[in-house]
């Protein structure tokens, strides 16, 4: 039995949002990492979050994933989000289908895992070990493991950063295709300005624990914002752009 992917909703406005964050506060002791952050991501919306190292973007992602406690505010999400990290985090002692079905409490877990692996182009490697995979393949398994949960919110923590340039481009296409099909809300944390412009419907720049800049590319298209503008927002003065 091949599991059915839920039909795409007719209008995103009717669906409950993938996540609503209000007045979020995160601090380690006296050091405030995130202050009064508000964010709403709709289902099917692809949001990229840029920012310098230490600006709090990974902290935000970890709070959304429910990995860290929050000191203030509210995070409302209908279901447990799925996460893909920079490293694939596959269990080396489990075969690929066992890795993908980890935590999947369905009687047809095998069929679902097989379907998810086929979606990422690894349908013929169900019983292979993670150690036989390349970096890109391992990351595709991690993506399958996230999507097999049918998440309403998908958190991507620099998932392409460790991949070579060609593999990264292929991964971009695959992620775009699968997100369009499964329609989760996506928050992509990245350092890569070009990646954000190509993939996102909306681009956020985080600075000192708040969202300092927001740009809607959806409808306007990727050309509506230049690389130089975004780099300037990130505090990089690009002479080539001027």
């Amino acid at each position, binding site marked *: 039995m091949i599991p059915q992917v839920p039909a795409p909703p007719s209008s995103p406005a009717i669906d409950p949002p993938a996540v609503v964050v209000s007045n979020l506060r995160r601090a380690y002791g006296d050091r405030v990492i995130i202050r009064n952050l508000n964010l709403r991501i709709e289902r099917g919306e692809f949001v990229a979050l840029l920012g310098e190292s230490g600006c709090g973007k990974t902290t935000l992602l970890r709070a959304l*994933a*429910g*990995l860290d406690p929050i000191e203030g505010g509210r995070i409302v999400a209908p279901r*447990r989000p*799925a*996460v893909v*990290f920079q*490293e694939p*985090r596959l*269990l*080396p*002692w*489990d075969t690929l289908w066992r890795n993908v079905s*980890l*935590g*999947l*409490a369905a009687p047809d877990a095998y069929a679902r895992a097989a379907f998810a692996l086929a979606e990422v182009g690894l349908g013929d490697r169900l019983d292979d*070990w*993670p*150690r*036989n*995979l*390349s970096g890109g393949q391992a990351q595709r398994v991690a993506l399958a*493991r996230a999507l097999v*949960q049918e998440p309403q919110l998908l958190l991507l923590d620099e998932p392409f950063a460790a991949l070579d340039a060609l593999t990264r481009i292929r991964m971009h296409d695959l992620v775009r295709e699968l997100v369009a099909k499964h329609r989760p809300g996506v928050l992509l944390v990245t350092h890569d300005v070009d990646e954000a412009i190509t993939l996102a419907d909306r681009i956020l720049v985080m600075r000192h624990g708040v969202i300092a800049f927001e740009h809607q590319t959806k409808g306007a298209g990727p050309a509506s914002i230049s690389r130089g503008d975004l780099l300037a927002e990130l505090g990089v003065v690009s002479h080539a752009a001027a």
Partner: protein
Amino acid sequence: MSNLEQTASASGFDRAGTGDTSSPSHRGLAPVIGKRGLLLLSWLAPVMLVIIWEIAAKAGWVSPQVLPAPSKVLHTAIKLAATGSLLGDLRVSLLRAATGFALGGSVGFTLGVLVGFSRIAEAAIDRSVQMIRAIPFLALLPLVIVWLGVGEAEKIFLVALGVTFPIYINTTLGIRQVDPKLIELGRIQGLGPFELIRRIVLPGALPSILTGVRYALATAWLALVVAETIGAESGIGFLAMDAREFLRTDVIVLTIAIYAVIGVAADAIARLLERRLLAWHPNYGGSR
């Protein structure tokens, strides 16, 4: 077994994409001799030693009272096996070792899991265990004899004591070494505490636990030899001490050989277990 190694290393090369089929571990002249030749060479020295020993004994250079010829020892083995006494003693010894191993292994594993998971259990248990571990466990033998007398209980207790610590230490260590990122992943995938332990913590700790098992097998065997030599009415150690009374060096050498063979067999079983259970692990199931 060599077949298994070859398949494993071949898949390793596929991944590297070199397509080279020769083993990288060959050094110097080794490729000329080949794998089979190296194996043959490694057996040459021990076989030569036995032959020299046989010649020395047969020629009368060594008194049979000191060291009987290997052929004589083999002859004694066949004779004792035929009367059934050797197999009976062997069975008794193996049973003692197995019982002690099961008891000590269970205690060590249980304590190890507790301490590996819980900081409270660590605070409560670990220091005491480490202090007891500082005592060479064979030094406790006189005390154990006072407590339990010279009997089955004393021997099994001593074996269990020797097994507990290596299993305990390696279980704790293994659990501690499990990648926290994988545990975090388990939480994200919605695993409950029981599933987290079953799917992530124990498999991650298994290489270390199996190292503990191998080490414990050696200690168990050592404990058994000592316990049976001190006082026993049956078992391989009894056979040796009984033979000493009558200056039967052939029987003594035989018991030593039996101890050695069983020790090697136990280690081989532990290695096999590692290969089977750690097939996923590049250091065990892979090219070695």
